[in-house]
């Protein structure tokens, strides 16, 4: 998995109002499933479309399988694109849709038929060959789009929010299916989504983007557990931020919050850019790292339960600390676990291994 599939080198795309993609560099390895994740408008689609060749970068180069593709038109790049709108040709049957790319490549009819049938088998649509796209459900259309993209055996499969038009349940099922298919074919996939859970489910690596720039690249667990900055921490999963400053301690660091909360933090839990005494930083803690205890039991910071949100698998508590700081705590719904009610006085216990300190986002 170390051979390069795609290399983007310092690519930039400007529009009149703003820079959509700003000096972005990235390596994608063969056979990996890589996702671009970020809020709407952060430049994910623009990046993907530059790789596909629909948009020419203002600066930088794009290499695919070792060949410079920067100025090559899309029809000569041999990439498989899957669109959010499916983009199936409405005047062609499912079979003809899937066969289109092979026709363009002048694959002989017999082989063409074979390959189309195999691709449709892979997405479990063999029975639908002679239907038209409008006669299929959204999920089926998405599978045809997928079959159409993989049948040409592209260097890379490019997918732009392919599941966002499906309902939640189907989306979940398709995520796993997509991942399975990618693994089975061993194909390189670049995926765009604004849904962090989706990115976590399908990807080997996630590229977190914001405002045209890469915030962090890493495996799902890495970006969740060790977010590079406040933006990543806030965008992936729930997180509590407490603004404060660091001071060196005998081991690690001592964090003192502006509103009074203090905590010990291990050295490797502090992002390099935050390792400085006295500058404003954010202490970040996942809600599941915050445990509520009864007031007298421990000596942690105290507060009051403001709100209880029961969601079935877990319960979320909103707690106001004595300093005025609001925190969220999540409890798995284990039998026998202590339940809190609004108004209860509580003490806060922080799991030290789940704390991290990030630089304040600019």
């Amino acid at each position: 998995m170390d051979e390069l599939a795609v290399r983007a080198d310092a690519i930039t795309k400007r529009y009149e109002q703003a820079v959509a993609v700003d000096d972005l560099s990235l390596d994608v390895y063969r056979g990996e499933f890589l996702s671009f994740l970020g809020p709407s408008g952060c430049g994910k689609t623009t990046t993907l479309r530059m790789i596909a060749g629909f948009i020419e970068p203002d600066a930088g180069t794009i290499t695919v399988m070792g060949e410079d593709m920067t100025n090559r038109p899309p029809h000569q790049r041999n990439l498989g694109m899957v669109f959010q709108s499916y983009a199936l040709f409405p005047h062609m049957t499912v079979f003809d849709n899937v066969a289109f790319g092979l026709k363009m490549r002048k694959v002989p009819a017999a082989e063409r038929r074979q390959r189309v049938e195999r691709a449709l088998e892979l997405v479990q649509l063999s029975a639908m060959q002679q239907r038209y796209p409008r006669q299929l459900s959204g999920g089926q259309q998405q599978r045809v789009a997928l079959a159409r993209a993989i049948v040409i055996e592209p260097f890379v499969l490019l997918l732009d929010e392919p599941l966002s038009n499906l309902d939640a349940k189907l989306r979940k099922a398709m995520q796993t299916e997509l991942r399975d298919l990618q693994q089975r074919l061993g194909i390189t996939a670049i995926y765009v989504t604004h849904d962090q859970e989706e990115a976590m489910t399908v990807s080997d690596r996630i590229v977190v983007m914001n405002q045209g720039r890469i915030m962090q690249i890493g495996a799902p667990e890495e970006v969740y557990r060790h977010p590079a900055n406040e933006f990543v921490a806030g965008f992936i999963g729930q997180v509590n931020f407490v603004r404060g400053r660091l001071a060196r301690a005998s081991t690690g660091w001592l964090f003192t919050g502006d509103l009074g909360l203090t905590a010990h933090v291990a050295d490797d839990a502090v992002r390099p850019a935050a390792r400085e005494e006295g500058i404003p930083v954010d202490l970040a803690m996942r809600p599941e790292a915050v445990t509520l205890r009864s007031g007298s039991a421990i000596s942690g910071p105290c507060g009051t339960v403001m709100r209880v949100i029961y969601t079935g698998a877990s319960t979320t508590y909103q707690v106001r600390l004595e300093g005025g700081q609001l925190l969220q705590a999540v409890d798995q719904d284990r039998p026998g676990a202590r339940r809190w009610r609004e108004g209860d006085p509580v003490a806060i216990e922080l799991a030290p291994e789940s704390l991290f300190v990030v630089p304040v986002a600019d």
Partner: protein
Amino acid sequence: MTSAAQNQRPERRRGRVDIGGVLLRLYVILVALFLLSPIFIILLTSFTPTESVEFPPRGFSLMWYGRLVDHLEGNPGTKPGLTPSILMSAQIGLVVAILAVVVGVLVAYALHKYAFPGKEVFRNLFLLPLMFPQLVIGVGLLLVFSEFRWFGYFERLVIGHVILTIPFVILTVGASLEVYEQDLEEAAMGLGANPVQTFFLVTLPLIRQGIIAGAIFAFVTSFTQFTVTFFLYSGSTKPLPMWIYEIVVMSVDPLLAVVSILLIALAIVVVVVLSKLVDVRRLFGGR
């Protein structure tokens, strides 16, 4: 007994006549009669057994339909033949439809796909012939053609009609371009189709409906176009509208009614064909 419907419309009470409803229906019927009356009158007149137009006709006869058959051939020197006129107008209409489609599709495609300075100005400019008095277009072209004399009357008519009908094609093709997404062209290119293949294999089939509708509009407009034709035609064979005009000038007789009925029949055929080939609703609206 109070039904749900009555509850929803409290102003309508049992035993009372719904005056508003009656008036509305009457109004709709009157407007329909008003719109259709010329056609009814013409239809009835065309079956008259008398030598001149009388309304209401005094009986039923196909006499004037028979006379029309006489007119098909014509009589050199005295009365012009109808068949050559129809053939000529059909020829012009066909050439006009083809040219208007070729030009109109390219314009609509450019307006849809590319961003360039002054695009909106151009869009409105191309639709101007729809709003201009046809008289002005006719006179203007007449002046131009009397200056540049290298066009024969056939070419002049074609040029005049193409100017009139290009906006139709731009409108209908533009509408069908709006309906489909740009993604489809990109999908084709991503699958290996070059721009020419993409246009012919994907774009063109998708805007087929708009093209057919535009072509039919163009043909019918040209076939029945009077004003511009009047200014531009010359030569021994007259286009159909001119042939009709000549009959009118000679005498208002029931033959006109018969010709009109044939034109109406043609229009109906065209509309039926149009609605078979084209999903009109989709053309002018959603999907």
